[in-house]
């Protein structure tokens, strides 16, 4: 059947609407089903917010992510005051803090002689590159006294080197959020290609690819990733290369399962009447795969991708936590948590656990988004 032009389709729809019918395209139906899944919508919103925050990380964060405040090592989160000395409401302000050693540990005391008011959209901070092309020193906020002097604000406290954890959480999201999509970018084409070829052609190729899949599925994921991480670390590569290596390692060990499922789907679709019809009409293999088979597995792929991302984020976090993932000076949420290895440091500096909350919220949001998508693309679910 020839495709109707947009104008003709509109006219047809209008005619049907007059008779009391509403026509909906598949995309519209999926969108409506998706909208119905409230928690999934919230999840999607949070995912979008995370990506926006990641893009604006250096603007939202008040400092450069590797800027060290030597006098503020392991500083607790700054207290933001809302009330003046007489108890009346005031513009939010902070005090400068001074580190003294009590009982062999650093204690921060506020110097209440001068108030530093929070100011928004002020220039004069560290220089950063907004959207990759705007050089600016404007940050979302900073704390300044009336005479123009600045006091550091650490919303989430600092680490050992006195680096602002709030900024580092935002910058860490670059890696944490990028890992999933980048792994998918490699493992999905690999899995789709191998699974598709395996299912479509069968025979010796199928046999060979299936044996390869079985080997992939016999490899224990986390232990082998740890070993790969150890190898990467040992080579003394730059942080960027280690990051790419981790992504490659994750992609290599994760295509097997996908290839199997795609093969099963292709096997089933290959026998369908519409494929036989297409072949009878003289369609080439390539055309059958692209026009008839791929559209039938797309919805599965989209859902699978959305649900693979949180899994990859968790694996990356675990690897980086153990020290076999992302290396300094790059950072990710898991890598930020790697300082919390003993109960002593967690007792003294509980704020180092904050990056974990980012992982939980992001993974949860991705899972809910994927769950809503899965329900929405399922043609058998009743809307």
């Amino acid at each position, binding site marked *: 059947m020839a495709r109707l032009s947009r104008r003709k389709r509109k006219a047809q729809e209008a005619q049907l609407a007059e008779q009391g019918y509403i026509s909906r395209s598949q995309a519209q139906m999926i969108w409506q089903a998706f909208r119905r899944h409230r928690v999934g919508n919230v999840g999607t919103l949070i995912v979008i917010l995370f990506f926006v925050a990641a893009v604006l990380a250096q603007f939202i964060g008040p400092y450069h992510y590797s800027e060290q405040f030597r006098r503020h090592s392991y500083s607790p989160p700054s207290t933001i005051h809302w009330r003046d000395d007489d108890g009346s409401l005031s513009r939010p302000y902070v005090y400068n803090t001074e580190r003294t050693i009590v009982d062999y540990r650093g204690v921060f005391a506020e110097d209440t002689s001068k108030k530093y008011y929070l100011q928004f959209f002020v220039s004069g901070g560290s220089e950063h590159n907004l959207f990759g092309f705007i050089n600016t020193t404007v940050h979302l906020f900073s704390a300044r006294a009336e005479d123009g002097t600045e006091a550091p604000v650490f919303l989430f406290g600092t680490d050992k080197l006195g680096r602002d954890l709030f900024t580092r959480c935002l910058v860490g999201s670059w890696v944490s959020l990028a890992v999933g999509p980048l792994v998918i970018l490699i493992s999905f084409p690999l899995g789709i290609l191998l699974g598709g070829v395996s299912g479509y052609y069968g025979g010796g190729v199928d046999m060979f690819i299936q044996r390869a899949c079985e080997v992939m599925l016999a490899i224990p994921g986390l232990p082998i990733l740890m070993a790969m991480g150890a190898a990467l670390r040992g080579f003394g590569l730059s942080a960027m290369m280690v990051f790419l290596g981790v992504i490659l390692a994750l992609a290599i060990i994760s295509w097997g399962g996908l290839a199997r499922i795609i093969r099963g789907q292709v096997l089933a679709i290959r026998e369908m009447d519409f494929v036989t019809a297409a072949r009878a009409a003289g369609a080439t293999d390539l055309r059958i795969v692209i026009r008839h088979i791929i559209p039938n597995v797309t919805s599965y792929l989209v859902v699978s991708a959305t649900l693979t991302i949180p899994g990859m984020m968790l694996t990356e976090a675990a690897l980086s*936590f153990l020290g076999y993932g992302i290396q300094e000076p790059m950072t990710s949420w898991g890598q930020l948590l790697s300082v919390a290895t003993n109960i002593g440091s967690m007792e003294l500096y509980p704020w180092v656990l904050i990056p*974990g909350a980012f992982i939980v919220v992001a993974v949860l949001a991705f899972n809910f988004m994927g769950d809503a998508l899965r329900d929405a693309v399922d043609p058998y679910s009743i809307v």
Partner: protein
Amino acid sequence: MPHLALFFHKKAGMLTYIIRRTLYMLPLLLIVSLISFTLVKIMPGDFLTLARLDPQVTEETLQQQIERFGLDKPFLFQYWSWLKNILLHGDFGFSFVTKMPVYKTLFLGNKLQWTIFIALSTLILQYLFAIPIGIYSATHQYKPSDHIVTFFGFLGLSIPNFFFALVLLWILVVLFKVGNHGLSVGGVMDLKYYTMGWSWAKIVNIMWHMWPVWVVIGTSGMAGLIRLMRGNLLDTLSLPYVQTARAKGLTERVVVYKHAVRNAINPLVTILGLSLPNLVAGSIVTAIVLNLPTVGRSYFSALQRQDENVVMAGLLFFSLFLLLGNLLADFLLAWVDPRIRYD
């Protein structure tokens, strides 16, 4: 016992199938062994790098080790001699760190038993909780309670095990200060009990140490099980035979538990085999944070000290577990599903 008669009827076919599958594990293990060997060998430095710095290790021992493992020989030769020792003598070599045989290093302090105990007990608890919750969720579809259950399931899935373990540690030690009440956290029991014989107090102590482990590892797989149970039961409940049962005037309880659940539970039995290796590998990070005596933790410390032989044997161990789990899954599927034939 589901379909016991049928099961025995096709047992003969099953047996050959199981044997075939078991034999099939061997080439897979062989390839995994080659992969782990390659991976360990491409790591910069070897166990002798550390040993050379150790003044206690004499030049003579070094030479012995070099000859024994053929470290000056080409790669494939080294692999072959490593493999030959395993296949012919069951000898995985020596750990250079502990100076003990590899299997002893991996399993020291009943680590194998603890690993299996932790995995099995977590598995049992997971199923004990997930099945009723899944049934409840399905019979209360789209009710607020269903949504709450789903939310908590997803929450458990979304918290990284290591972070959950850290937070529990922090809550117990810093917030509740359990140390002041003479309770310790981490490990599988208080130190003094390790050398003691079995007693009621020891069991209670182990239970105290185990619950955070169960909570942390258990919750990560619960969401999947609950969703599976819920989905299957919903599918089953919409089948005509359930309608028939209702039409006969059976109570809802009988319809759900005697008619629907029995069929809906099959896939859960099948994935039991797949969950076991996941629990073994998944508990590695938790074991490191909570200081549990598991194989995963000795693998981790071996990796940190570049203890090559132990790392390679550890990888093989996890792979073996994975394959055994898959085998178990196939076996269970044949057991619960009478439609599957193996002739």
